[in-house]
Each structure stands twice: as structure tokens, then as C-alpha cells.
């Protein structure tokens, strides 16, 4: 029998499909973006964020959603004779590819729009928001909401490569956590599914804090004790925080029963 390695095919197929969804998402974001530019130009509305910054604040949720959808490819591939392992490897590669492509595409589109539409864009300092709200709410729910909404942000003009890298990392984490949640629901019952959501939020908050410490960005008061950690340790912990959901997803899907 011919030895067939299916995972590169799975990776390419899933990447292309999710890239198409990403372009759809960009289409909607572009409509909103131009509507806001139009409003500013003709009716003197609010200031407009750059396209890149608009995508930065919304793409996490987009990645979370397509991460959740990712589990539905598992029965599809097993039905087509692909192993769970090849599905896992393919889907993981596709999600890495997508996490890298999305910020680059957003950056390119944003630069083109800026070159064509010459207005004053708001340079929002996304990281400072964290402290403004922190003092007012200061409770755990406030922290959780912020952790979900606000991701570590590096300004494009200060270090574009680092900025894109951190953006990619955020997206990748959201995708993994969406995938982790849906894989838990797929394999187990409702209760464990809910536990996986809580675990995902904790992983996200902890990972974000580590990234913030490594980048010297403001962090939640709750984690202030960790602020003095040396960068080498935080980078290592960040790696572990990425590998943890990857490992859990593989364990969840390794021998899972395909639902019919």
C-alpha cells in the first residue's frame, strides 16, 4: 500500500478555507471602516482608528470563533480516512499560518488605506486602557472582561516586527483556546466543557500577563508580584502557556470517538 502523509494536505486545505473566512471578516471590517471615515468626513463624527487597530481589537474574537469551529473538521477528515493525528498536525499548522497571515494582511491593507485616505487617524494607546478601568472596577470580573477584550499591544511605529509578532501570538492563543473549548465539549459532557472555558480564561489571563511583563507593559494589580520576573523566565513561561493548550487538545482528540 502507498504511504500517504495527509497532514500537509489538511494544513493547506484548512488554511485556504480559513483564509477565505478571514477575507470575509476583513470585508465587513472594511465596510465599517469606510463608513466611519465617511461619517468623519461629512458629519464630523468621532475620530477613526487605523484599519490595523480596528482589526487588532476585533480579530481575537474572530479567531476564537474559528478555533471553536475547528473541531468540526475532525469528523470530516476521519470520514475521509485521515487519522486524528494528521488532522491535529494539519489544523495546528493551518492555525499558525493564519495567525501570521492575518496581522500581515491587516498591516498591508491598513497602509494602503492610509496612503489613499489622508485623514488624522487616532493613535489609540490600547495598553493604557487597562489601568484606567482597573482602578474603577478592580474586581475579578473586571479583570476577566478586560483580559478577554484587551490583548498585549505593541505600537507598529515603535517596532513593527515585534508588533506583528505579538499580534500573531494573541491570535494564535485565541484560536487554540477556542479549539480547546470545542474539543472538550466534543469529547466530554457539558460540565467539563464549562470547566474548559474557565481554564481557557485563566490560561489567557496568565499568558497575557507574562507577555505584558516581557514587553514591559502595564499589568493587572492582581499580578503585580510577578512584575519583577526576569525576561528569560517570562519567555520560557510564555512558551509553556502556548504548549499547554496544544498538548491538551492533542490529548482530547487523540482517541476520541467520532460522533455520527
Amino acid at each position, binding site marked *: 500500500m*502507498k504511504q500517504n502523509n*495527509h497532514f500537509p494536505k489538511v494544513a493547506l486545505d484548512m488554511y485556504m478555507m480559513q483564509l477565505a473566512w478571514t477575507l470575509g471578516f476583513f470585508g465587513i471590517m472594511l465596510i465599517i471602516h469606510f463608513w466611519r471615515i465617511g461619517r468623519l468626513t461629512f458629519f464630523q463624527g468621532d475620530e477613526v482608528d487605523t484599519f490595523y487597530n480596528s482589526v487588532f481589537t476585533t480579530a481575537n474574537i474572530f479567531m476564537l470563533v474559528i478555533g471553536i469551529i475547528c473541531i468540526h473538521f475532525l469528523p470530516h477528515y476521519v470520514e475521509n480516512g485521515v487519522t486524528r493525528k494528521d488532522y491535529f498536525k494539519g489544523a495546528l499548522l493551518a492555525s499558525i499560518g493564519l495567525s501570521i497571515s492575518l496581522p500581515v494582511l491587516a498591516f498591508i491593507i491598513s497602509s494602503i488605506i492610509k496612503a489613499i485616505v489622508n485623514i488624522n487617524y487616532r493613535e489609540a494607546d490600547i495598553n493604557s486602557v487597562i489601568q484606567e478601568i482597573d482602578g474603577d472596577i478592580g474586581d475579578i470580573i473586571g479583570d476577566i472582561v478586560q483580559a478577554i477584550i484587551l490583548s498585549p499591544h505593541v505600537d507598529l511605529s515603535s517596532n513593527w516586527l515585534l508588533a506583528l509578532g505579538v499580534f500573531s501570538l494573541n491570535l494564535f492563543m485565541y484560536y487554540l483556546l477556542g479549539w480547546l473549548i470545542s474539543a472538550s465539549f466534543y469529547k466530554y459532557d457539558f460540565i467539563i466543557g464549562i470547566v474548559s472555558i474557565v481554564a481557557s480564561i485563566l490560561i489567557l489571563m496568565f499568558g497575557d500577563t507574562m507577555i505584558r511583563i516581557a514587553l514591559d507593559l502595564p499589568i493587572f494589580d492582581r499580578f503585580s508580584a510577578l512584575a519583577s520576573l526576569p525576561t528569560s523566565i517570562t519567555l520560557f513561561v510564555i512558551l509553556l502557556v502556548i504548549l499547554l493548550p496544544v498538548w491538551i487538545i492533542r490529548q482530547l482528540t487523540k482517541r476520541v470517538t*467520532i460522533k455520527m
Partner: protein
Amino acid sequence: MNVKVENLGLHYGRDEALKNITFELTEKKIYGLLGRNGAGKTSFLSILASFREATSGSITMDGEVPFENANIMQQVLFLYNKDYKDESDNVKSLLEDVQRYRPNFDIDYAEHLIKRFKLDKKKPLKKFSKGMQSAFNVAVGLATRAEITIFDEVYLGMDAPSRDIFYKELLQDQADHPRVFILSTHLVSEMDYLFDEVILLHKGEILLHEDVDSFTTKGAKVTGSKDLVDEFVGSKKQLNTEQLGDTKAIFIYGEFSQEERKAASHAGLEISNLSLQDLFIHLTGEEEEYETK
């Protein structure tokens, strides 16, 4: 591909869905898997297809464990009554998808079948009727030409003319490209001529696995006057009895010798063969009938 199943068992919590399943499929034939609702057919087939793992026992295909084995899994195809209500892709793109992952897939043959079943290639699958979705499944099943092709009741939703097309295409394609087909069905009387061998699953266990011809010769119906029939049948395994006045018919599972047949004929008794359907009904249904009486 040689399929060997040994002492296979499956538990759902405390329920034992399958127990001690042992058999071997050595030839490229069409195997009929018969069993009543809840007998464990789908559970068993989903283990064969690596959709799930067994709780105990083993399966090997050509000496290798199929579960998570890329070489084996790409040669095993399992089709069931899948719900396509969310499938917005059309036939054409779905076939292209299958072609990407199945090494023996024959796209020309798939298109020939799609044409015969009169399916619109450009229509999303979710807009097809249940029967047309089944026909699509059947077309994929035949055109994939997987070494082990498993159909789990996929033809149920199809109308009679479509089923007839399927049976003809199945026999023709099996003649041209022999492989292992496993068909599970309730439509026993309609499909019996397709099977080379039959496997009877009852309450999670294999009741029998035999060549269809030798199996059906084991079933007989002895009809005649009540006392004579009772005396003639003696201690043979009785599946069922029917009585109208003094005339009695007893369904037997077991073979008659030439002498026995002659003696029956002399005594004015009639011995006729049972169909696969009759055997299926009485071998798997008898117990409950008596229990409810």
C-alpha cells in the same frame, strides 16, 4: 484486505453493546451484516472504520491495527445515514474533496453514478431530499473504491428505482474491481441476492457467520398434518410454528438427510426452503415472541 476480529467487546458505561465478536473476512466478497435494531451493528461497524475504539479484543487488517493507522484508514470507507442539513457545499466540490484524500477514487465513475441517480451537481447537498442525499452517499461509496467499503443502512431513504440502480452498480463494480463490501440492512428480502456471506449479529453477539447458500439450505419449513409433522421434526431446532386446523407448519433450523427427505415425501409432508428473511426473522425474533405471549 484480510480482516481479523478477535474477542471484540464494547461497553457504554455498564451496558455491553458488543461481546466476544470473533470472525475473519478473508476474501473480496459482499458481506451482509444482519441484526435487529439495537443489535450493535452500527457500533461494530464504527469500530471497524476507526470511528471509535473497542473496549476489549482486537481488530487487524492485513496484520495491522487499523486505529490511527494512516495506510489502513485511507482504505476503509464507512458510510452511514449522515445528516447533511448543514452541508452548503455542492456535489461537485464535495466529490473533489473526497478525491483529494482517497487514493483509488474514480471521479469519472462518480460522475456516471451522479448522472444515473439524477443528482444536480451544482446544488448544495442540504437542499437535496433525504433519498437524494442517500444516493449521493452511495455514489461516493462506490466511486471511492476503498478496499473495505462499509454501508450502514445508507440506502434506506432511497426509492425503489434508485435502490435497484445501486444494487446493479454494486454487482457490476464488484465484478470489475473486487473488494470487501460490508452492507448492513433491514431490507433482507430485497438484498439477499447481493450477499456472498452473511453475518448475523444478535444482542451484541455473532449468532452466525456463513456462506449465504449453505446458510439458507439449513432453514426448512415442514408442512403437513399436525401429528405427522411433530413426529417427523422430533428434536430438531424449531424456529417457529404455524397452525391452521389440523395442518401445521414448523420452521426448522438444521439440515435434513436425503433419507429424511424421502421419508417426509412418503408421509405426505412438504419440505420447502426458508428464505434469508425468514431465517433472520425467526433466529433473532423468536425469543421475544415467546416472552410476550
